[in-house]
């Protein structure tokens, strides 16, 4: 639309002229049997394999002390959740660049996916998208009742028409680019701790 209409029409016409003979119908996606095992236990195991860690915290007070215990030297704790104050509120951050000094970002995920240990986070959950990626460490809150078995059920829950950004985040940043050796904290968060709360 921004470019000349001619490229657009040329491409679409070339496609129409090339369409393979015989139309293939969409196969539909059957309801698969969810994986065996308790959702929460499998989720925790998968998160661990992805380099993250899950913690059962009984109360908000316990969550706060766990946060302090995990990150004793954190100077800037930027929070997007009402329960945890942090040292900076994401609501007051105007520009993504202002998150460059964040030691710990605190967010709440909408739900988790058992088969992978991933959590679903949207722009609304992060406040500013960059909080999920510039923070040196992440603490993610998750209601343990909000775990779905697999990606099929997960995609039935996401509302892509309601958010500009959504991410399945599975543990911290990782790379295996140097001699296939797994290293966490390549560019994004160095650690991801998940509190069931």
């Amino acid at each position, binding site marked *: *639309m921004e*470019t000349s209409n001619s*490229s657009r029409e*040329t*491409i*679409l016409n*070339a*496609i*129409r*002229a*090339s*369409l*393979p*003979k015989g*139309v*293939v119908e*969409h196969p539909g*996606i*059957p309801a*698969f*049997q969810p994986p065996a095992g308790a959702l929460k236990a499998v989720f925790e195991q998968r998160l661990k394999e*992805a380099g993250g860690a899950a913690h059962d915290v009984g109360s908000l007070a316990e969550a706060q002390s766990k946060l302090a215990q995990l990150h004793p030297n954190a100077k800037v704790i930027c929070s997007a959740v009402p329960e945890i104050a942090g040292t900076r509120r994401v609501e007051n951050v105007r*520009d*993504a660049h202002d998150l*460059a000094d964040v030691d710990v970002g605190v967010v709440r995920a909408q739900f988790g996916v058992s088969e*992978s*240990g*991933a959590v679903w986070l949207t722009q609304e959950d992060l406040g500013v*998208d*960059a909080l*999920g*990626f*510039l923070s040196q460490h992440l603490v993610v809150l998750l209601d343990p009742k909000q775990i779905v078995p697999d*990606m*099929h059920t*997960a995609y039935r829950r*996401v509302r*892509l*028409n309601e*958010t*500009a*950004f*959504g*991410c*399945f*985040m*599975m543990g*911290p940043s*990782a*790379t*295996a*680019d*140097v001699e*296939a*050796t797994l290293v966490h*904290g*390549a*560019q*994004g*968060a160095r650690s991801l701790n998940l509190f069931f709360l």
Partner: protein
Amino acid sequence: MSTAKQIDPAAAAELFIIQDQIHEPMHDRFLWATMQRRHAEAAAIPEWEELREIASKIKEHTLTHLDHYLEEFEANATKRGAHVHWALDATDHNQIVYSILRDHGVKELIKSKSMLQEECQMTPFLQQRGIKVIESDLGERIQQLDGQPPSHIVFPCIHKTRKDVAELFARTIGTDPNNDDPHFLTEEMRNNARPRFLAADAGMTGGNFAIAETGTFMVCTNEGNADIGAAVPPLHIASIGIEKMIPRVEDMGVFLRLLARSAEGAPLTQYSSHYTGPRKGGELHIVLVDNGRSRRLGMPDFWHSLKCIRCGACMNTCPVYRRSGGLAYGSTYSGPIGVILDPTFDEFKYSELPFHSSLCGSCSEVCPVKIDISDQILNWRRVMAAKGYLPLAKKLSFAVAGHAFAHPEEYHVLENLAEPAISYAPHFLLYDRALNPWVRDRELPQPAKKTFRDWYLANRSEHGNLQQ
């Protein structure tokens, strides 16, 4: 016919193999280990084969309705505030990207890994026009600093040792040449890249999937580098091949269950990010790129290659790729998928690639979208032979073989002569390095004393009325 020089993958692979006793065995070992993780993940999902079949059919459905889904994607992405551009070819793509960057006064760009941008040779195009382009994926950055293209579509520098990387970083970003610990090297690059993310005027990504129903595109990474590039600079440009369309959000469940398991033996990549319109306060441009894809769609034997989701499983399982290294293919796409994609860009230049295969068929077996890769490799051999692109040695030996197979009575005579022929032929004739690069590091098998046919006639002749 193109004027480009014909790529000689066997000769390039030989250089990779003989350089030392370290690189090729390491490359082979790492990729095979990745393949074993893939097998374990696939075996743990009872519906794995059904998922492959569904994914294949969804892709075929989409490609046979591609005009419709592209228009639907464009309408929905535009409605959400994205600017959608259409690029006929690589130059068109690069021009569009450059004009967006120029209009926004961009001096420095941070980009994540995109095979499409590699295919378009975008980085040199922009750098010649005064724009600084930094790769943010660690492996891709290593390759950029070394002046090499990626050697693998998922693991760009898998052919390098930690020592290679330590020496490269010492030379280019001033680290300790004697510290080759991957943790140290990754940390050094994190600290080197961070200021570049913050200084960049624009971020660029590719796209793994584009969802027509919502106008969303998806990017999968492990490092989070694409997300920083999309979330920090004010401008985000995504290059997406027109074949990346997927009809509905629900379809993504199938593809994401297959992609990372096939690519690296993990249930997902660490980040599976969905972009639907610009972020709060940002600007988003999407460039839909054809560059030969619509033409490929019209090739009855080859259009299934457009189903590819770029997982790299065919490369990891390929006995030829694992021992050759990806750079031997001399092209953007290497391994089995490269063998069938590259000739669509330049048949003459890549005419030797279809012969860089054992035709074992493992690639077709592991492909998550069931592309008939090995059949296409064979079909490309036919194309190359029909066009007369075969080198003289192959032409002559294929002519002899073709004649023999077409005349069974002569074949049987030859068969019985082969054993004494191979046994008594001068070594130099069979192992001539110029005539047959495949035997440079191999010995021919010992021929059987008795042919299968003779054994069959002697032992099972009661079953057969085998024509004599």
